[in-house]
């Protein structure tokens, strides 16, 4: 009698049980969720631009040019030049770096710490959970922007302080989402079984529950990324954000754009479009990811 290991399966069966390759998954995703794919493409384009900013730029973003101030978009300056003659396109390209770095760092940081807190709080339950919830309530009691503003003023203007200022309000929101996910997983059969067998709590938490929160976590992070980018832009606009010399889309809009807007409307249009595109892309992607990875969260 042939041993199971040597059974030859027909090709069709093999195809059915084979794990799909990356390209197949991607292809499926693009077909099923065209909007999400578009969002992913936008984010990819922005990320690539940000990483290769030094290659993508056409001029030095801080080089001034007295003769060419407030120039309209032209062959020389693709998106025009600002009131100091600096190339708007190159500044937007470098601004992408900052927006992405700050946006990613704060949403990852906030989601990560919030996730850990939510995981432990949800798993341990009881008094710890109750107290943690109240503490998180305190942090969440304030609108994101207001808390970020106060934190930014409290910490002072520097790029890491802005990241901290934006990630702190994200922590309670992340904790909430992960916690509710944990609460539902905790009651599942296999977890009870593991506990019955005597597996240590920490092991259960990290080996069984954590992997199942990855889906909601990714969704959460992409959702927060959009917010983080917006809050960074708003903080910069109000003067509480990323300081000079780092280029920032929000600051490009506050510092001179509005004043020269009638002579040079491109100063107002392009940075704003950049911000909107980045947030739009991350929202589209986040939505599609959520629909794919965690259908329970649909509509949340």
């Amino acid at each position, binding site marked *: 009698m042939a041993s199971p290991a040597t059974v030859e399966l027909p090709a069709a069966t093999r195809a059915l049980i084979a794990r799909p390759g990356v390209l197949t998954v991607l292809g499926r995703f693009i077909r099923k969720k065209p909007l999400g794919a578009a969002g992913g493409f936008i984010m990819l384009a922005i990320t690539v631009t940000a990483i290769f900013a030094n290659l993508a730029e056409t001029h030095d973003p801080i080089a*001034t040019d007295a003769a060419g*101030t407030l120039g309209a978009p032209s062959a020389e300056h693709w998106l025009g030049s600002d009131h100091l003659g600096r190339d708007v396109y190159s500044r937007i390209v470098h601004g992408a770096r900052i927006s992405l770095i700050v946006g990613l760092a704060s949403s990852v940081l906030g989601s990560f710490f919030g996730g850990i807190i939510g995981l432990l709080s949800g798993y341990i339950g009881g008094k710890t959970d109750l107290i943690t919830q109240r503490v998180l309530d305190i942090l969440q009691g304030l609108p994101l922007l207001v808390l970020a503003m106060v934190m930014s003023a409290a910490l002072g203007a520097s790029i890491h302080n802005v990241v901290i200022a934006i990630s702190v309000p994200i922590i309670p929101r992340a904790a909430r989402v992960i916690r509710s996910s944990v609460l539902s997983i905790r009651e599942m059969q296999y977890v009870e079984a593991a506990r019955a067998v005597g597996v240590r709590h920490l092991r259960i938490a990290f080996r069984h529950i954590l992997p199942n929160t990855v889906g909601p976590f990714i969704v959460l992070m992409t959702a927060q990324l959009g917010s983080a980018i917006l809050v960074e832009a708003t903080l910069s606009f109000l003067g509480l954000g990323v300081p000079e010399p780092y280029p920032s889309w929000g600051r490009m809009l506050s510092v001179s754009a509005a004043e020269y807007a009638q002579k040079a409307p491109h100063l107002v249009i392009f940075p704003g479009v950049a911000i909107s595109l980045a947030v739009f892309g991350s929202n589209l992607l986040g939505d599609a990811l959520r629909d794919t990875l965690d259908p329970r969260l649909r509509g949340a």
Partner: protein
Amino acid sequence: MRRPTLVAVAAGVALAVVGVLSLTPAIGQTPKSGGTINIMAREDLAQGFATHETSTVATSTPSLPCFSNLVFFDPSKKTDSMDTIVGELAEKWSWQDNYKNLVFFLRKDVKWHDGKPFTSKDVKHTFDMVRDSPEATAKLRISPRKDWYANVEHIEAPDPYTVVFRLKRPQPSLLLMLASGYSPVYAAHVPPAAYRTGCIGTGPFKLKEWRKGEFIEYVKNPDFYVKGRPYLDGIRYVVIVERGTRTAALQSGQLDVAFPGETGRTAMEQLKKAVPTMVFQPVAQNVSDNIIMNTKKPPFDNPKVRLAVGYAIDRRGLIQAAHQGGAVLGAAMLPKPYGVWGMLEKDLAAMPGYGKAEDMKAQAKKLLAEAGITAQSPLKVEMSVRAIAIYLDMASFVINELKQVGIEATLKQIETAQWHATATRGDYQIGANLTGLGTDDPDANFYENYACGSPRNYSQYCSEEVMKMFERQSQELDAKKRTAMVIDIQKRLEQDAPRPILAQRLDYYAHWPHVKGLVAHNNIYNFSRFQDVWRDK
């Protein structure tokens, strides 16, 4: 051939008459009484109307309508000088004892806005308080211009309408300082803290309402001591923090007048295009762009390095790059025709940074090489800048210039709340700075910004020799001799370079044509009482 008809001839004559009439300038229109105007304010009052406790045009200018000075610069004359000083609360004045005593004879018909009579007691109270004299009847929380009156020994009020300023040594400049918009007279019967929340003055307008963060509203003072003035029924300063909204409000007519110093060249061009009838008065602000360097710490304790910085920065380039042409060349004092003490064209041309850019930069590189700084071993410094657009623009340009001679400066943003503390502590290497002069006077400038130990001498520059030069010019009574001394001092300051001056800013003061009688001055602090201003419609 047709003969021209009578109608055609008449029409021709009529056209000719109209043509001639339109060429004749409108002969002095008669001011009309009534109406109100809205004026732009870019931020709310810093400390209410407490002009003596602040050093910012954001407080002093919107407070001007409420107050009167002893003497003031003639509102109708653009350039401030000793010759344009007119009396407000003082009817007559005279220097005695070779410019050591200044006697004022005060008006007898002046009332405070609360009805109480104005007397010499108010003057003595105000200036004793400002100079922090032991005999002062009240104390200011902070007095930024204490040093203006450092030379005053004693203020006497021998009778209700006479005041005498007794000085330690002759100082003709005292009069110019008293004429500044920064020198209003407070009421002796009002505690100075009250000026932070309201205003009791003797000026042409009474404070009606100050809605915090929104507007400051004045109404005509019916008991104003100049009969028939003011013409306007009221004025309102409207606070708009957003730059774009501010300009849009002026353009759409919701604001009638801009704020002094707010209309740059590009803004002017934009406004002009949108509103061809808008009136612009190009004036100097008496605010200069400059670079401060910490003379007590390396690398800028080395005068050669400082001088190199002075050479490296192309002044004309800055004016084009950072101001789009809306600034003029000038050293520490405002040049003619904007001011009276400035250096002449030929003198300026010889100063570091005013010649041909390539030559200047070559000179800078040579100086730096002597200090061991070359393109291979560049000097790395941090340039401290306040997070405000006009500072940042200047700094961006300067950093580019310095890069070309081997100085690599990185921008370090300092929050407003910490700027002065940082600068006064000497916690910086090099910084981008703006300096405004409350009055076009060498004493005010030199003692505030370059004197040993002065809190605003951020470079901590101290030269005994130059201090003696300050003293000498301060006591010089001959105007011509004094001007020559002041020019020499400016040359010396550019050579020692504790604070190289980059440019003197211009303002294209904008207002709608129906606002008449408004004359901008070459100094943002010294005009805006609005007592002679009227509305044409």
